[in-house]
């Protein structure tokens, strides 16, 4: 299976990218790491007539803390984000998610923004973005616009990005200061790095007496896009996060789920397993927060 013919431009600047997108319209596609797009082109599920390569646009790569957020430029490699001190310190949930993303061969090329723009419903970066309430910046010659991740990722493999736009930045909220923070991502997958059947993400912040004052939870693989587990978050906020409380609160997400059956698992299985995975990730994040508290450290994902 070979890709259909296309024209290729290696863009040197963001202006290059945006000018080309404006001129070429929906026939052009941006290629970042290409770890999903090239496979789709090989299978002829995607047939762009023009590829705009953003891998050499310096303005689209890098990690920088800014106020209450960590800003990750769209074309930042997944391995580069994993190696970033800023991600480890200020985006502990993303740090916990990244080792689950694909394999080392795909993380070396794959990017943070590329994964979000592809919109796979089981992708861990999207799960993290939804759990944390991340925002994205879309650039175009008409100007930039900023969207909540839930307004950007609107369905399985579906985003609200316009044909003249390029995803430029992702803003991940930092955990609040002054709490002991723990984060965990857990999933069921046939092998390390395979597509997850069900994934769960949890970031938790505890006060000195062990009360939960910060909690962000998400589940993937059980709906067209990952689900923010708001009812469970509300139920557990202000508690001491006892195992029994977590187990009970995790079941509050069931009405939010609408899984489908596929070759990996049935809808019934996903529905049954999702609350358990959420509880498992929540307990792991709580335990890490407690470990950091005992060590007197602030946050961490390992």
């Amino acid at each position, binding site marked *: 299976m070979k890709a259909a*013919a296309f024209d290729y431009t290696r863009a040197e600047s963001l202006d290059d990218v945006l000018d080309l997108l404006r001129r070429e319209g929906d026939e052009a596609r941006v290629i970042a790491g290409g770890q999903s797009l090239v496979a789709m082109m090989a299978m002829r599920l995607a047939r762009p007539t023009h590829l705009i390569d953003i891998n050499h646009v310096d303005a689209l790569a890098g990690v920088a803390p800014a106020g209450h957020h960590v800003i990750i430029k769209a074309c930042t490699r997944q391995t580069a984000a994993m190696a970033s001190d800023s991600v480890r310190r200020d985006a502990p949930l993303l740090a916990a998610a990244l080792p689950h993303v694909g394999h080392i*061969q795909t993380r*070396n090329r794959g990017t943070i923004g590329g994964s979000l723009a592809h919109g796979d419903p089981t992708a861990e970066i999207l799960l993290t973005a939804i759990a944390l309430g991340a925002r994205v910046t879309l650039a175009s010659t008409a100007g930039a616009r900023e969207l909540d991740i839930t307004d950007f990722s609107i369905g399985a493999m579906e985003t609200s990005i316009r044909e003249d736009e390029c995803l430029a930045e992702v803003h991940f909220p930092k955990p609040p200061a002054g709490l002991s923070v723990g984060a965990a991502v857990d999933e069921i997958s046939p092998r390390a790095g395979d597509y997850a059947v069900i994934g769960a993400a949890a970031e938790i912040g505890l006060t000195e007496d062990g009360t939960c004052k910060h909690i962000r939870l998400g589940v993937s693989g059980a709906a067209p896009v990952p689900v923010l587990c708001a009812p469970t978050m509300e139920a557990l906020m202000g508690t001491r996060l006892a195992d029994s409380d977590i187990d009970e609160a995790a079941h509050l997400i069931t009405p939010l789920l609408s899984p489908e059956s596929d070759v990996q698992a049935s809808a019934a299985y996903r529905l049954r397993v999702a609350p358990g995975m959420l509880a498992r990730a929540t307990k792991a994040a709580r335990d890490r927060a407690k470990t950091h508290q005992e060590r007197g450290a602030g946050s961490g994902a390992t």
Partner: protein
Amino acid sequence: MTHSISVTVNGATRQAEVEPRQTLVDFLREQLGLTGTHVGCEHGVCGACSVLLDGEPIRSCLMFAVQTDGHEITTVEGLREEDGALGILQDSFWETHALQCGYCTPGMLIAGQDLLTRNPNPSDEEIREAIAGNLCRCTGYLQIVDAIRLAGARMRQAPEALGTEAGDV
């Protein structure tokens, strides 16, 4: 329309004209005659086409050759010793019978070489994770794990061996 590229492959700079739709693996095999890298699934699942791009393992079916202009590639051919003898990892695959049909072998060697460059003393679990992106349809995984473990032990005895081409880039 073709594009001119200049890419360093196993230490030698190569100039070529490529069509944008030609993948890196097809370029290596068809234009450069480096048939050690195998084409498996052609959509990023099997890992047989793994090569090192600027020293990091990638899948050469998920990158177009035109994108490699100015970069360095190491293929399985680049893992041998300067005199043409098998490298330590390759010899360890031989020693432990870590290949049957040989189709996955170049990808397994690239994945194993990358792991041992980063971590000369990996646990079996770390070895398994490092080759999780590479499928062996003969299902000979146990001997592959044995081979990488053996190569690690041999390299720790002869640390200068890590300065092979793949280790240097």
